[in-house]
């Protein structure tokens, strides 16, 4: 970025489109909190007034994947929940990022058993991992700052297709929603 000004004219700001977009994006993240366990409670502390994630422009949590660009997976993901998480990720629009909060989401944590997915990176790509059980809010804010730096550079987005091609990221097939999922819900009985 630079500032140009000539005699008799207002100064103008020159920049590259990507840089401007990255700058705008990093300060207006719309997180989708995917809280499935105790880390979800800790995430609430991050959003609360004491740690106040709004200082970083990421306080407007959205519970719709279509309105969010940052998926924060906070909690244990069971094998049964894995297809749901994958579908939510698939429904989010590009550009999108994923933070894996806590050891459960990152690696299964101490739930090394029949029921638990051993890390969400087996089904979706992850940008930042936060260790801890649960991570302290400072760690979450730190991860957010790291992600903001990453977004500003914009490299990861440009690299993503080639990394998928090289097998470094899981292949996300955009499977079409099943007929059942798209059917209007009018047939559901009202109680």
């Amino acid at each position: 970025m630079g500032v140009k000004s000539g005699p008799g004219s207002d100064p103008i700001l020159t920049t590259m489109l990507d840089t401007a977009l990255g700058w705008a994006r990093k300060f207006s993240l719309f997180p989708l909190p995917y809280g499935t366990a105790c880390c979800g409670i800790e995430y609430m502390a991050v959003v609360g007034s004491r740690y106040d994630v709004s200082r970083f422009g990421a306080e407007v949590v959205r519970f719709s994947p279509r309105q969010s660009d940052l998926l924060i997976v906070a909690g244990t993901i069971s094998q049964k929940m894995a297809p749901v998480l994958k579908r939510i990720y698939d429904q989010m629009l590009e550009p999108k990022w994923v933070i894996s909060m806590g050891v459960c989401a990152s690696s299964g944590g101490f739930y090394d058993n029949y029921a638990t997915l051993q890390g969400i990176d087996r089904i979706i790509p992850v940008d930042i991992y936060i260790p801890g059980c649960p991570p302290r809010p400072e760690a979450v804010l730190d991860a957010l700052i790291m992600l903001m730096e990453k977004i500003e550079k914009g490299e990861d987005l440009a690299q993503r297709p080639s990394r998928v091609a090289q097998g470094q990221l899981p292949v996300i097939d955009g499977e079409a929603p099943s007929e059942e999922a798209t059917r209007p819900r009018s047939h559901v009985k009202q109680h």
Partner: protein
Amino acid sequence: MTEPRNAGKLLQEKFSYLKEFDLATPFPGFFLPGDNLVEVARYLKEELSFDLLADLSCIDASELERTPRFEVLYNFYSLKERDRLFLKVGVDEAEKKCRVPSLCPLYATANWYEREVWDMFGVRFDGHPYLKRILMYEGFEGHPLRKDYDICHRQPLIPGAD
């Protein structure tokens, strides 16, 4: 103030085949054959006011070197008398004999508990209206809380996610 009743003693006087076991709790517990379960449970509910089936769980005793292999444990509570009582039914592991009569007709709470025990241990409950897995997903094979279920065995729903 009247003396608190002794439900365990009352029960044992009525059904002589009950064998007391030590539960390391202040509450009485009895072993009984599965065939007599409904009869005893009905007496508990209707005569001794044990109106709540507070819990129903199962033990795979294969590593405790006890026979039979499974022990289904019933935890009854009386809201009126504030009294608790346990029953235990031994269940053989042979496929055909791995079954217990269901308590669903007596206690509504038995419905989900029995589904859980079926899901985790593979003990069938005769007369259950809807004996389906409750926690694990459809297509899951085996019963994960059995001691012979390989602890490293994964059955992911998304192929390759194990």
